[in-house]
């Protein structure tokens, strides 16, 4: 297994800390003019999502984590788990609701997502950047309003709630940026 030393560590690299896979967020070199050099490394635990800062002595090494991303299609939810399939190999992956986390509210059946795998086990899923979803519940808007100023909440078929302009109606499809949860536009069936 590959090993990184503190000076090689850059944002985005994956390492193992206390047996958990983590992604590096920041690495700051700290050194008094005449004193011991340290690296203050900030990372997110990919299992728990917790952000932690830890100090290393410069030159210390850490183990690289074998983390890979793979494209997979969301198949269905069986009541407790989500099922995904890699389309070209038909390999299937199963994740708990906790592992899917916030992403769940943007993913509907058939959506193509990115699974993050650690030693072949899924750690999490990233929805497509933009998703097209149906509004299942929203207050009737005021006719003639096209500005979108103010807006109103709308519940989507996946459970997410986003702010939409007043002219957008229940039953319509809208495009949303899943990274920010912001309404982009009305959409047509794809």
């Amino acid at each position, binding site marked *: 297994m590959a090993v990184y030393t503190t000076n090689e560590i850059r944002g985005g690299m994956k390492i193992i800390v206390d047996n958990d896979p983590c992604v590096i967020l920041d690495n700051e*070199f700290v050194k008094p003019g005449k004193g011991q050099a340290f690296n203050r490394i900030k990372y997110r635990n990919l299992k728990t999502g917790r952000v932690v800062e830890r*100090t290393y002595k410069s030159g210390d090494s850490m183990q690289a984590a074998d983390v890979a991303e793979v494209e997979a299609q969301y198949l269905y939810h069986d009541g407790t788990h989500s099922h995904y399939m890699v389309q070209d190999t038909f390999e299937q992956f199963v994740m708990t609701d906790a592992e899917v986390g916030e992403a769940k509210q943007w993913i509907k059946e058939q959506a193509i997502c990115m699974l993050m795998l650690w030693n072949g086990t899924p750690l999490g899923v990233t929805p497509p950047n933009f998703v097209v979803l149906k509004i299942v519940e929203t207050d009737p808007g005021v006719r003639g309003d096209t500005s979108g100023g103010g807006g109103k909440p709308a519940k989507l078929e996946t459970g997410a709630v986003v702010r939409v302009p007043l002219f957008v109606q229940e039953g319509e499809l809208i495009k949303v940026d899943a990274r920010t949860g912001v309404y982009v536009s009305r959409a047509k069936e794809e």
Partner: protein
Amino acid sequence: MINWQPTASFEILRQRADMISRIRAFFAERGVWEVETPLLSHATVTDAHIMSIEAPFKEMGSGKEEICYLQTSPEYAMKRLLAAGSGSIFQITKAFRQGEVGRLHNPEFTMLEWYRLGFDHHALMDELDELLQVVLKLPPAMRMSVADVYQQCVGIDPHTATVEDLKKCAEQYVESYPDLPNDKNNWLDLLFTHCIEPQLGKDAPLFLYDFPVSQAALAKIRQENPPVASRFEMYFKGVELANGFHELQDSVEQRKRFEADLKYRETQGIPLVPMDERFLAALQQGLPDCAGVALGIDRLIMLALGCETVAATLSFSFVSS
């Protein structure tokens, strides 16, 4: 695409040039003259935590090869000038440090170093304070002893604390820390960089003075209770800017400190380097009573101009040099 463009903007570079010329004028007014000393040296510093960049020199014809070093500061050469009778001197020069690169570090950086005959460390702090007020329009500096700053931030006395005391203190104040050698200075550095330094000099520059004797470096030690080193450092906005001493004049004591450094290096597997015998010989001949200070120009300009990194003050930072 290869990025060949300067790292800093011309606006920053012009202000940098202006500040440097004002610094030169400051010393000219005071009769402190500018000297130049070699960047390439046969010997180098023994400091446990300062690594020199090696530069192999091959003499043409003879094929003789010698490992030389890029200077980590002009201190030894300038003290040789002082011992030879130069009087008060200053220098703006490049210094090099192996492996140091980051937001506040560039492996080669610009250093202002000066020595004042007949000054002690407090008199030199006064002059540095004046320089910052006159040249950079900074507010007047504050002063605090090293003992007080540790007491205030982490409730420990840095002069009397043992390694065990410092470890306990780290457990309490530092979220997660690495295992360090059983050496007092390493643990002082850990507490200092994590719990103290970021809070220093928020509104005005802050001088810390009178260091533990284990961190005396090239400063005189005053036999008080407890004994303290006549050393100071200056911080502004949480960044270390300067380090100065009421200079050690005793060549026997200086050699002992070098030997202790080399012994530490040996126990930690850090490469050994030759002691600067010419510097020691100059001390033996006699260094006049003086105080000296080194100031990081890139960092000073970074803070004065509100930049986030030292790279933003350099025509070409190491990453793009």
